[in-house]
């Protein structure tokens, strides 16, 4: 086993990362925690209010509402992008120039900036001028525009997010699919498995680590959603697309309630922490299950 010549060495090596972590993460979080006990609007002196920023968040129902909005959005984004990504990956998992072109096209959406995508979709979703918007209007959904209805706007945003990140999950799934040895399929076919049987007994179990990875990364993307909301709906109509990060932004930069916003940051942090632990736990469980197989 390697031993450091000096006991301080490992800490010295860690120092650069540690400094960055403290300055840009732990310190701001501490400041947010401190600020959350004050009522402050940047211009007039801060006033100590104890835990009232937190109680207000709970009592006004804002927290639950924001949480509901965020989770709904995340659910649609995670499930949508995984399902579509997997289907696309299986469809384009073959050689050929044309398939290569399709792959590149689908992935290209992931490379484009969020703001461009959001602007593009605002056009597409317009009830009068947009192709997609008109299509939905003809079906009787969102007749004055999907983004204009409080019951449709969030799903429209989630749809746009799925459209943008599906290319990424497709590529990851594709890599996962190409990692599965061809003999497995041959063996399964010899055993009399049909195409569904081969998917269910070979592809799906062997893709599990990939699925977990895609799930985690799309969950992270969906929780960080801000650009689409800022550009396309600004949290509206009637607050229906005010996801967590946007709600925090709104409290800081529109309402200038820095205390309330800090309280939200702390709550959001705890929430993400819990989610991470849950995911870690599920991930370990999955790996153990995989080994036991």
């Amino acid at each position, binding site marked *: 086993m390697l031993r450091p010549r000096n006991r301080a060495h490992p800490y010295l090596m860690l120092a650069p990362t540690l400094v960055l972590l403290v300055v840009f993460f732990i310190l701001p979080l501490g400041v947010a925690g401190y600020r959350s006990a004050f009522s402050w609007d*940047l211009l*007039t002196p801060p006033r100590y209010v104890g835990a009232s920023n937190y109680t207000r968040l709970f009592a006004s129902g804002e927290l639950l509402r924001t949480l509901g909005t965020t989770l709904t959005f995340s659910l649609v984004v995670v499930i949508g992008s995984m399902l579509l990504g997997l289907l696309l990956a299986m469809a384009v998992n073959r050689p050929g120039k044309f398939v290569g072109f399709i792959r590149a096209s689908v992935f290209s959406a992931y490379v484009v900036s969020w703001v461009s995508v959001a602007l593009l979709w605002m056009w597409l979703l317009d009830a*009068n001028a947009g192709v997609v918007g008109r299509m939905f209007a003809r079906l009787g959904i969102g007749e004055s525009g999907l983004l204009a209805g409080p019951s449709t706007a969030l799903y429209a945003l989630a749809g746009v997010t799925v459209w943008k990140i599906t290319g990424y999950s497709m590529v990851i799934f594709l890599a996962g699919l190409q990692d599965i040895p061809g003999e497995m399929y041959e063996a399964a076919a010899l055993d009399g498995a049909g195409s569904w049987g081969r998917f269910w007994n070979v592809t799906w179990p062997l893709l599990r680590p990939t699925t977990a990875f895609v799930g985690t990364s799309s969950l992270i993307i969906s929780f960080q959603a801000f650009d689409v909301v800022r550009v396309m709906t*600004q949290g509206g109509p009637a607050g229906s697309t005010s996801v967590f990060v946007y709600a925090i932004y709104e409290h800081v930069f529109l309402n200038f309630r820095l205390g309330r916003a800090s309280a939200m940051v702390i709550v959001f942090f705890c929430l993400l922490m819990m989610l991470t632990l849950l995911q870690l736990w599920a991930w370990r469980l999955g790996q153990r299950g995989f080994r036991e197989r």
Partner: protein
Amino acid sequence: MKGESLSRRDLLRAAASAGLLSALGCAPSSSRTTVKMWFSYGGKNRQMLEALVARFNASQPAISIHATFQGDYFENLTKLRSAIAAKSAPTITHVVSEVIPYLAEADVLEPLSEYAGAKDLDLVPALDQRGTWIGGASKPLMALPFNRSTPILYTNQEMLDAAGLKAPTTWDELKQAARTLKRGTGNDTVWGLICPISWWFWAALVQQAGGTVVEADGTPTLGGEAGVRALDLWQDMVHRDHTMRPPPGRDYNAWEVTNGDFLAKRAAMIYTSTAFVRYIDQNAKFKAVAAPLPRDVKAAVPTGGTFFIMLKDAPREQKQAAWEFLRWMAEPQQTIEWATGTGYMPIARKAVLQLEANGYYQTHPNDRVAMDQLAHAVPWPWAPNLFRVQRECIDPLIEEAVLVPRNSREVLEQARRRAAED
């Protein structure tokens, strides 16, 4: 490796000498006092303002105004508040009237009363600090009117003629006219009325129904019964009559949609701002006629738009220089240029007299409507909570009431509770 480090050093040296040279080059012009100004216009209004600034800069050797675009009113205000806290605010900017009592209370505004000529500006009373706020006359001068407006009704005269209608003058006539004018379904709908679901238009309705949004002492009553009546009017037209479209988008996005739909003949009538009079007149491919807002128990309109403010923390000589610019902007010539080019109202009394004398209002009847409506302008209370009530309580909740929809009385009760929180 050696060659590389040498060339990098050379580059640095070149950059340093270039920087020094440009600094030297700038030196002679630095005898002018530079004043930073933030503004909130895009499009044609921006060009107009920039042209005015350029003319001011060219007209004298001592002061140079550096005007920077900072997004819409609310974006500018956001940046301004952060910049004040970070001590990097501009010397002057312009802000919506509702926020001025708050900024004054927070003690960030420079009082202008003592500057040379402040007492002789001869402004239109309904549009300056005296007429915009209850008790505004007894306060030190904190703001100078810049682009001032009121809400206004615009009608597509051809559609009205075809239906044998005149511009509605009361709420009942408005509802009736909207029912008659609504045509088609789906993508081919022509709406009777499009009105942004925004505090300003709602405040107009509340005042017309005989209510007050925020009382003179700052109590947010939100109009009481009049507030409910105002919300019910919208709800009826949107959900019962299906004659009004609440335009999508937040803040000014919804206003743009409103104007756009009107110009594309997708609406027979719209509520918009006098600010867009010139824009609509120049872009309508039909006869677009302005009319006063329909009345309920009385005729009333709030005033809107922005005032110039000066930040207290700026260096003294910059404030002095900025004042020269503000005073210049309030002169009749500049006022006329700005008002006739945009549709905002002329804020200097001499400018109004001059426009009347040379027959401007005869040839521009839509501008006339805006000016006449000023007789019914209702002042705001000088209440520091005014802006917060608007942004946090009224705007989001009336939107919910109309779009979801929710019971008007309950929504306003909730808004009052929220407004009562500190």
